[in-house]
Structures are given as C-alpha cells and as structure tokens.
C-alpha cells in the first residue's frame, strides 16, 4: 500500500501572515506549477486532508483553531510550516499577541523558510513531507498488526494482574481505620 505518497491531499490554513505565503500556496495549484501532477488536491476539509499547510504565526486567537484542525485530521498526517512566520514567528515574533511558530501549538514535520516562501520550496516541502507520511503510515500499520496487538494485550494483562495483586492487601485496612475514626468522632460529642 504505497497509495499514501501518491495522493497527498492538503488543507491550507492562514494563521496571522501578511498573505504573501498564502498567495504562493495557491500559486502551486495554478497551471504554472500544477501540483495536481503529484495528486495534490486542496481539499479544505481536515477529515480528507493528509498534509496540513500553515502559513503565518500562531497567536492567542488562532491557537485553538490550529489545534482543532490538527485533531480533526486522521492519521497518517503531516504538518508543513510554510514561511518564516510559521517557522518562528518571523517579523511578527515581537508582537504582544503572537505566541511564535506553529510548533508552539502542534508538532511540525517540515519547516519551509522564506519570506514569502517560494512555490518551488513548497513543492519540495510537500515531497519531503511525503517521506514522513509514509513512515507514519508504516508505523500505523505496525501498531495495528497482529503481533503488536498481541504484545499490547499481554502487557495490559500483566499490568492488570500487578494492579490487582497490590491494593487488595492495603485498601480494606485503610477503610477500617477510617470508619473507626469516624465512629469515635460521632460518639465523642454525645458523651
């Protein structure tokens, strides 16, 4: 199953950039660069997307949005920080409301420098992201494989057995003590 790297669908979100990078992202879809050659589609839907392109810095207002889009995307997924602002906050890094680069909100796989980022660099970044996407897919497949499930089940049973053997000896003793104290406490005012 190598389909993952052949159809990277993207979702594009603009944090707080000057729109320079956004225009370059859209330029990738035009006849000049035509990223659909590689199966790239701009979906606009986090549930269909594999690659998350973010331009601009993360600020107090949009950090929730960025996190939500990321959480709605299904594994395997890759985050590409496009441009200087998305990498580190860029020219806006000193602003009172700017938190910093995208990696302050979500894990970033590929950083693309540039102000504004060049479409060629963006295409390179998506291709670099495909490597990460393929690795994540392989990891996901491994995690869902039979052996991994058996190992996880065995580990879980061991943990449960350990947990069951320990507290049973201690907990009843504790409760008895507590009830004794409680009874005494109730009786004292009466006497």
């Amino acid at each position: 199953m190598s389909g993952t790297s052949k159809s990277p669908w993207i979702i594009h979100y603009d944090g707080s950039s000057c729109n320079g990078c956004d225009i370059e992202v859209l330029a990738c879809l035009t006849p000049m660069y035509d990223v659909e050659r590689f199966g790239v589609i701009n979906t606009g839907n986090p549930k269909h997307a594999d690659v998350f392109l973010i331009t601009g810095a993360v600020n107090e207002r949009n950090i929730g949005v960025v996190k939500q889009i990321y959480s709605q995307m299904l594994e395997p997924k890759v985050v590409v920080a496009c441009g200087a602002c998305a990498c580190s906050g860029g020219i806006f890094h000193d602003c009172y409301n700017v938190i910093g680069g995208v990696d302050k909100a979500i894990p970033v796989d590929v950083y693309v420098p540039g102000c504004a980022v060049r479409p060629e660099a963006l295409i390179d970044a998506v291709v670099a992201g495909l490597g990460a996407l393929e690795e994540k897919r392989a990891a996901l497949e491994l995690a869902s494989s039979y052996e991994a499930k058996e190992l996880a089940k065995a580990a879980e049973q061991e943990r449960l057995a350990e947990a069951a053997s320990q507290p049973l000896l201690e907990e009843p003793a504790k409760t008895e003590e507590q009830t004794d104290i409680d009874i005494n406490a109730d009786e004292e005012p009466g006497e």
Partner: protein
Amino acid sequence: MVMIKYIAALAFIVLGPFIGAIVQGIDRKITARMQGRVGPPILQPIYDVKKLFAKEDATVNGVMDFYIILALFFAVFAGVIFFMGGNLLLAIFVLTLSTLFVIVAAYSARSPYSDLGAEREALQVMCYEPFMVLMPVAMFLVYGSFEVATTVDIAMPLIVYMPLIFISLIFILTIKLRKSPFDLSTSHHAHQELVKGMTTEMSGKTFAAFEIMEWYETVLFFGLIGMFFVSSAWWSWLVAIGAIIVCYLLEIIIDNNFARVKWQTTLKWSWAITLLLFVANIAILSFI
C-alpha cells in the same frame, strides 16, 4: 444466451469500478489540459482510494458507515439488474434507493455542511426522478417492454424513436454525475461553500466506499447512454461506445464551462426541459 447475462453482471461487478476509476482519471486529465495544466496520472483515482483505505479508522457514527455500504450495495445491485438486461424501471428505483441511503448517511453526521449537502442532494433527486421514471415508460410505449434486453433484439435502436428523451437524459446525467453547473450537494473540484457538502464528514474507508459507488454509478450511466444506440446489428455496439465517449466529453466540457447554479434554477430547468421534451417526444411518437 442465459450465460451472457451472468457474464455481463459479473463483468460489471469486477470491471465496473476499474472502468469508472479510469474514466474519472481521464476526466481529471482532460479537465487539467483544458485549464492549461499537465494534470494527475490516469490512475490517480485508484491511488486516492488506496490511500483512503490506509487511513485511520474514525467515523462520526457507525450508522453512517452502514448506510454508505448499503448505498454501495444498491448501486451495484441496480447495475447488475441493468446489465443482465432486466427491468429498467426496477434498476432505476434501486439506483434511487442507493442515492437515498447516501442522503440518510449525510444527515446522520448532524454537521451543518453535510446536512445542507444532504438537503441539496434530496432536491436533486426531486429534479431528475420524474424524468428517470418517465424514461422507462416511453421505452414501454415503443417496445411494449421494460426489459433492457429488448433493445438488443430489435433492429431499430431507441434513439430513432426517442431522440428528445435522449437529450433530456444527457441533461439529467449532468445532475446525476454531480458535475458543474449542478454540483450542488458535493463537488469533485476545489471545495465549495459547503466544503465538500454531503461527503464532508466521511473519511477514510467510508469516503473510499462513496468514491467506489460513484465509479459504479458512472458505468451504469454509460449503460443508460449505450442502451439508446444498441440494436440487433453487431456494429451498433461500436456506435454505442462512440456515443458514450462523445456524451462524456460533452459532460466534461459542460463541467468546465459553467458556474454552479442555484437549486431553484436546477429544479426549474430540469423539470421544464425534461418534461417538455418528454411530452413532445411522446406526441410525435403517437402520430407516427
């Protein structure tokens, strides 16, 4: 003769999705060329679906998966009835049932995007369903039978008797193939104001099943076009294939040259054009 029926049905089940996928790939390639782009490889739709199957399992609710699987099943079932030369009316009703399951699946997500998409799809069903039911009626008036297999036994192809109804069918297919200007419920191209409409909340395997359903539907629609051209002569099959190619190219041209219209316009146009042409066709038939 009985064997041919089963072979046709099996061919539809096995080869249908591949033909549908390749047609969609060619569609995307031609569309790209029309826009001055290179375009994706022909097998891109297959890569897309392969990728969707490798995605993490996560759905809004389990019911949605079930409805989409039912939609896929009934789309295949409709195709099997059609390609076995069975009852055209039944095939069309089963196909509508498949679309209804997609609508219910979209509603089950309870998301504003897929809710609106489902409403629009329901409206589209309302736009084309009167014609889709009347078409077999016209065929019955000509051949005295609803059986698709009758077309192969008679020397005169349907197009000779029902040219206006064929034009209506092409109009309706633009809606059924969810192509612009009627891609109201969900769009194949860049996202629209409803993001992806009905399919917004579908992901991974569920969305893959929806895509495969569209491939089967495409092949079934090709069958509907071909039905108008085949007759008892062997070369009529070549004419039918030629007609299918020409009609699909026409659909691609329409898709790329028209902006999306509102649902009100879709409803008015589809009812006015298809019903007028139907009545005119029937009137002419009654005089001959």
